[in-house]
């Protein structure tokens, strides 16, 4: 509860910050301090210290898993602020407002990770979506950004409608919005419930860009200002994923037979479409958009498995994927050429940056000693433990091998090819942040115990 209220509050504070401060630097400092404060209060709450005593029974319940997930989301946002907050100035004129919107999005994520009521889920998803539409269109003079925002808004509104319809169906079948009171097992044969569940499934799939509901993703990610793509593709995506898992694990687990096969097929399709399309991209930014679709396929494994390992895997995935992607987008935002050729010879011009990008790419490709490997490892382990869908596991690793192809193209371009410098310079602080992310990635890959000991103890 601490974090939900505080982040909403911080959003309002940031809105007024643009009146208070004339220059950009204090705004940035305020945002970073705010996010640090948010992290502290959220960790306090997971240690049992509650700042606000509100009765949220029937609406929200903050399990240790949800709180830990929130901490990850906040920490990733902190990293994101540290690396990208300067580049946000390039996106448009409303600097402070961008931070405000991001804090609102975080509020939505906190609701989505800990709802016990379908209405809260809907609210959370909307609180996440609407600021995202604005951020996508932040570059007002840029046609591509406008197009992306409009597309996103139309498609997003449509999927929200489907979600509402699904919730209404479920309400019709069960007579309640509260997950705990639904007694779904007793209604296993209800067509209304099945239809509602599938509609919810599809609309959630849209939000996390699972194929075949992914068509908006490349355009939106490509069109949006790079700094915001970074946030959208990482924190937002894994946040909604946590809600997705929460919904289907605590809500519809008892009737898993009805939707699990659908989900497995969707996961396979997502892996296939994401990876195969990413292979043919010429722009690194677009490649990352498709790779984020592909990674969503792996995150779906947690839903297919529906066990403890899957939950842990999603946590690791959230850390590994978000950190690496934020890092890469942080670098891309400073590039003048987004194509693979733009990376040619980066190792000669910027050896340290190239090394960091290499580690991010290795992590995304799932090479051992990185967090990305462990995340994939947990996902595979989860599905294997659940016993079914071994074909999905084998298909998944084959697709992971395909993904190595396009991640390594970046490494090849940086190290084995030569080209002019397309990198517009980086401050030494941002370099430290990049190195810090790399250390975090490798550390998580080597000692996941530390992460999980925070979760369990």
């Amino acid at each position: 509860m601490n974090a939900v209220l505080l982040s909403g509050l911080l959003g309002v504070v940031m809105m007024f910050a643009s009146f208070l401060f004339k220059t950009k630097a204090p705004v940035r400092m305020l945002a970073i301090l705010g996010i640090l404060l948010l992290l502290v209060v959220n960790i306090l709450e997971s240690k049992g210290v509650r700042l606000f005593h509100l009765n949220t029974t029937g609406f929200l319940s903050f399990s240790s898993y949800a709180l830990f997930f929130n901490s990850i989301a906040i920490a990733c946002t902190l990293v994101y602020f540290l690396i990208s907050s300067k580049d946000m100035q390039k996106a448009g004129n409303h600097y402070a407002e961008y931070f405000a919107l991001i804090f609102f999005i975080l509020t939505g994520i906190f609701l989505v990770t800990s709802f016990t009521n379908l209405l809260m889920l809907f609210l959370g998803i909307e609180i996440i979506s609407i600021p995202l539409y604005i951020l996508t269109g932040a570059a007002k003079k840029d046609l591509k950004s406008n197009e992306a925002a409009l597309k996103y808004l139309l498609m997003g509104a449509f999927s929200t409608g489907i979600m509402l319809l699904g919730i209404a169906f479920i309400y019709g079948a069960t007579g309640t919005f509260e997950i705990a009171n639904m007694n779904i097992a007793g209604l296993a044969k209800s067509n209304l419930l099945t239809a509602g569940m599938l509609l919810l499934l599809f609309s959630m799939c849209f939000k996390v860009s699972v194929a075949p509901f992914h068509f908006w993703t490349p355009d939106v990610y490509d069109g949006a200002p790079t700094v915001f793509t970074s946030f959208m593709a990482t924190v937002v995506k894994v946040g909604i994923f946590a809600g997705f898992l929460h919904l289907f694990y605590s809500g519809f687990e008892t009737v898993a037979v009805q939707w699990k096969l659908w989900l497995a097929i969707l996961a396979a399709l997502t892996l296939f479409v994401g990876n195969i399309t990413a292979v043919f991209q010429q722009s690194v930014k677009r490649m990352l958009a498709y790779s984020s679709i592909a990674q969503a396929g792996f995150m779906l494994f947690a839903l297919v498995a529906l066990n403890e390992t899957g939950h842990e895997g999603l946590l690791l995935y959230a850390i590994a994927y978000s950190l690496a992607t934020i890092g890469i987008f942080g670098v891309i935002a400073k590039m003048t050429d987004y194509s693979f050729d733009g990376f040619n010879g980066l190792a000669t011009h910027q050896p340290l940056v190239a090394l960091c990008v290499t580690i991010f790419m290795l992590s995304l490709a799932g090479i051992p000693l990185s967090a990305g490997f462990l995340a994939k490892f947990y996902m595979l382990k989860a599905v294997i433990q659940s016993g079914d869908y071994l074909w999905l596991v084998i298909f998944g690793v084959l697709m992971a091998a395909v993904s190595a192809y396009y991640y390594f193209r970046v490494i090849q371009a940086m190290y084995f090819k030569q080209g002019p410098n397309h990198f517009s310079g980086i401050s030494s602080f941002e370099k430290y942040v990049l190195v810090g992310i790399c250390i975090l990635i490798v550390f998580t890959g080597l000692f996941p115990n530390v992460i999980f000991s925070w979760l369990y103890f």
Partner: protein
Amino acid sequence: MIALLLILVPLVSGLATFLIKKEEQVRTWSLLAAIITFIIAILGVAVYTTNWTFRADWMGLLNSSFSLKGDGMGIMLCLLTALCYPVIFLSTWTTAYKKVNNFFGLMLLAQAGLMGVFLAMDALLFYFFWELALIPVYFICSQWGGEKRIAVTFKFFIYTFIGSLLMLVGILYVYSHTPGHSFDIEAFYKSGLSMKEQTWLFWLFFIAFAVKMPIFPFHTWQPDTYQQSPTAATMVLSALMVKMGVLGLLRWLLPVFPIASYLNGDTISLLAVTGIIYASLIAMRQDDMKRLVAYSSIAHIGLMCAAVFAEDKSALQGTMIQMFSHGINILGMWMVVAIIERKFGTVKISALGGIAQKAPALTFFFVIIAFANIALPLTNAFIGEFLMFKGILGSKVSQNGIWIMAAAGVGIILGAVYTLRMGRKVFFGETNTLTEKGTDIAFHEKALLIIIIGAILIVGIYPQPFLNAVDQTSQSILKNSDVLPMLMKQKH
């Protein structure tokens, strides 16, 4: 402790190498590191023979531990790795590299990975080292290789990466079926999987190992990669990395999936002998010495693979000895090829000739290495191949031992044909304009080749210590992969 040091020394010194700026210092430092590793290995073999076990907690939640142990086979391969590295560094001492610190750093990291693979007794750890050995070599080959290096190395990388990922699925599946969910090798041996499970898991593991060795039809990456890689990397790949695959078969495949190994044994042997004959025939038509050696390596590895699936004690002993010998022989072969390339600027067989007149010492060394390559008596390869043939013929699990042996025998004869043909065309006959100005090799090259020849002859003349060293290992592998009691259990 020895086991840990063998990994730590190359790892730490490799990481340190990246930070050194001066070229001379880089070379000296990495050579020093390689020699220290070698001394540690020798100490481990000679003095601290009981000190090859190390165990530390790591990833406790997953029941995976940092568990290292040197059994006979592991110790021998570590010794081979430790011996090869200084020789490789010295024999390519004068080769110029851009960013020399990165090159040597990656080489040492690859050594750490290799040592880890040979010593790891925990499936997850094994997988980690398996990949750790691959990544540096990938970078070395694509940065410092020949013209077509990027595409060729990438193919190599994707092949092996697919293989390892499939193995990862297999590892996870076995893990979830072990008593008490553990990655420990002993737990893997006790997994008690059904025949059906074993059959498909077997292939997941086998493909990973088959790509690495390589076994026909997974070999297509190999000749290109050997040809395009810088010589030092080719030496590491062919002398050491292919042994990862054979070791995988012996340690992780046969005992973990005994029933499937029993059932698929003949299929694999068929693939292996097909590879032997196929590679030998192609080797006969090669004009490029590097490609010839690459194909000859496929043939030799194929024989080892067939011998592994004979599941016979002398075949396994022969395989292990041959792993060591093949490493030495092919290293010697590459050294000769590298010297020729350095002196004459080409490795085209048709462009060379009559080198013997100008470089008698080089020719002498080449002839001995060639003899070892075709397994003449008194050379090391004879011991290994003899034992392997004996084992294949006397195999209790295969009814077709005689046919496999006959086919492999044809491969050996072909091996003699192409090796001697290469020798005749390159070293003997008349000199031409290119080889006329040739000179003989220098003292340090002689010294290095003498080490190789020494290793060839010692194992060839007095193999008993080596046989003793691998005796225990081969017996325990056979004990774990004895199928008869398990088949009985499955029936009831």
